[in-house]
């Protein structure tokens, strides 16, 4: 069974013919290791370690979002809810219950997935713009709930007091206060997530979500359960974003209320779009571009968000397929010559 080949999924001539099966097979086999290798080099080229870790975390967050927006074609505006839930659950599990950091992360991911199941079940029935508004409003519900439950979440001040210095893995322990070790740990988590993501995209399920993006009516006519597939994509996307949130909690040792706020939902959309929606490495490119831009602009002016907004408008107007999309188009052009 050549599960790695999207062409292997039955009944989807449209999805299969967009790329040559051979190229798709080779691409999907190497994209995860190649991405991880590229990310391993980040600390060498970026000015600070913290920036590099942020690229990993937000790139992963955008990658999770990309599964829903880029591949399934669903524009959600509420993904901060999953990032924030992952972060808060991890922090609370460590701080209040003394759970092992890895178990706490697992809990954070699972809770983010359950929340995605609930929000997805409510919102999946609406389409397009309506879907974006419903997801945004439901995520706001989570935001205000966290704001009110300040006994657990610290309310407006954010969650504190769960600093993790060492993650024990049986006989060995990782000192994650050491920047290089921390980077390696986050990268390992991201690598596992990327391997899973690559596998998901290359599976028949991955072919079906792309078919839904391209033509929902036809996918339904082909006999696929569109609603269930969308919901599954929503939940999977929430799981990845939950992991990103959990990593961010470990990295920062605090969970600011902002990690549930709707501008962070926008961040996922921005990064995915800037990097290239529906491309495998695009979200990381987007995270890199946005964070580096933010970093350098904030040195230069306190109003860096103005410049960010302008850059973003220019992207929508002139480069709708993002950096990754443009790079792929260039690559294809070169390949043909």
């Amino acid at each position, binding site marked *: 069974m050549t599960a790695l080949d999207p062409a292997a999924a039955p009944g989807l001539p449209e999805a299969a013919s967009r790329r040559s099966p051979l190229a798709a097979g080779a691409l999907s086999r190497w994209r995860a290791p190649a991405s991880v290798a590229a990310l391993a080099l980040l600390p060498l080229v970026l000015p600070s370690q913290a920036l590099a870790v942020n690229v990993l975390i937000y790139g992963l967050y955008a990658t999770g979002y990309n599964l829903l927006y880029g591949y399934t074609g669903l*524009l959600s505006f509420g993904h901060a809810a999953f990032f924030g839930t992952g972060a808060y659950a991890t922090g609370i599990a460590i701080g209040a219950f003394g759970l092992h950091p890895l178990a706490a992360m697992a809990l954070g991911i699972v809770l983010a997935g359950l929340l995605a199941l609930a929000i997805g079940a*409510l*919102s999946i*029935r*609406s*389409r*397009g*713009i*309506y879907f*974006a*508004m*419903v997801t*945004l*409003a*439901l995520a*706001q*519900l989570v935001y*205000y*709930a966290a*704001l*009110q439950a300040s006994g657990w979440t610290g309310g407006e001040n954010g969650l504190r007091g769960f600093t993790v210095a060492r993650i024990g893995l049986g006989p060995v322990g990782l000192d994650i206060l050491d920047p290089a070790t921390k980077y390696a740990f986050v990268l390992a988590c991201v690598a596992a997530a990327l391997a899973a993501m690559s596998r998901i995209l290359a599976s028949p399920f991955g072919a079906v979500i792309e078919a839904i993006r391209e033509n929902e009516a036809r996918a339904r006519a082909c006999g696929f359960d569109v609603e269930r597939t969308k919901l599954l994509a929503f939940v999977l996307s929430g799981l990845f974003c939950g992991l990103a949130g959990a990593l961010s909690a470990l990295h920062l040792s605090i969970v600011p209320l902002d990690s549930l706020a*709707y*501008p962070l939902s*926008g961040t996922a*959309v*921005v990064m995915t*779009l800037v990097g290239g929606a529906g491309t495998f490495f695009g979200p990381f490119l987007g995270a890199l571009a946005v964070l580096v831009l933010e970093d350098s602009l904030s040195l230069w002016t306190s*109003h860096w*968000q*103005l410049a*960010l*907004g*302008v*850059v*973003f*408008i220019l*992207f*929508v*107007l002139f480069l*709708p397929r993002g950096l990754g999309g443009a790079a792929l188009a260039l690559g294809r052009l070169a390949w043909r010559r």
Partner: protein
Amino acid sequence: MQLFSGVALGAVFVMLALGLSIIFGMLGIVNFAHGNFFMIGAYAGVFVLERTGSFWLALLLGPLLVGALGLVVERLLIRPLAGRSPDDALLLTFGLGYVLVEGVRILFGSDGLPVATPEALSGVADLGIGLFPVYRLFVIGVVALVLLLLWWALERTRLGLIVRAGARDPEILRVLGVDIQRLWLWVFGLGIALAALGGVLAAPMRSVNPEMGSAVLSEAFAVTVIGGMGSLLGSVAAGLLVGIVVSLTALVAPEMANIAVFAFMALVLLARPHGLFGKPGLGT
């Protein structure tokens, strides 16, 4: 009493949701910067008020100024996106929101401005069934007047007929020789001016700050979703309903007021996925 101040709050939501709904119904885009235009409206009102000392002038000029800004935005940013996925416009207006918020921070600073209730409208009035703040009565009156005007313009004039036809089928309208781009330009400007009017009206009821737009955007969305996308009647009914729900919740359990809107929306969606007055074909 609490029910009543809910109606005044709801009236502001109605202004926001109407603008969102009109822009969506005609141009097919969701304006993510709508809350930010509401915020700009409040600042424009304060600006005019400080220069002229007249609240009435602020009420008139604020929306006009911001509406004019809306025309520029439509011409330069929205129009080039014609024919592209509606998602693109949504993303573009999201980016625009950043620009507007930071623009205001640069011009007016990050701190909130308090706005005093205009003297002629301060105090309370005795309506026989209780005492009501005059300003809130005034807000309800202005919104009712605008609604009446809008209803008349849409339902009773030739231009309104064209606008309603354009929402159904812009292609046919184009074939019939209507300059649809110009129509879109003015409809966008009108929607923005309505948001700005909401901002000016809200200014004395809450402090004016750069973040106030983001705070109302999700509520305006909830109102639009509850009412049904593109339905004017739905926007009005849902706006008032949400205002009342918020105020009554604030009375019983103040800390739940923010959550109530969205919980209410979730309940409505469970029963009617396309909103109270929405048509199943539109957006769902």
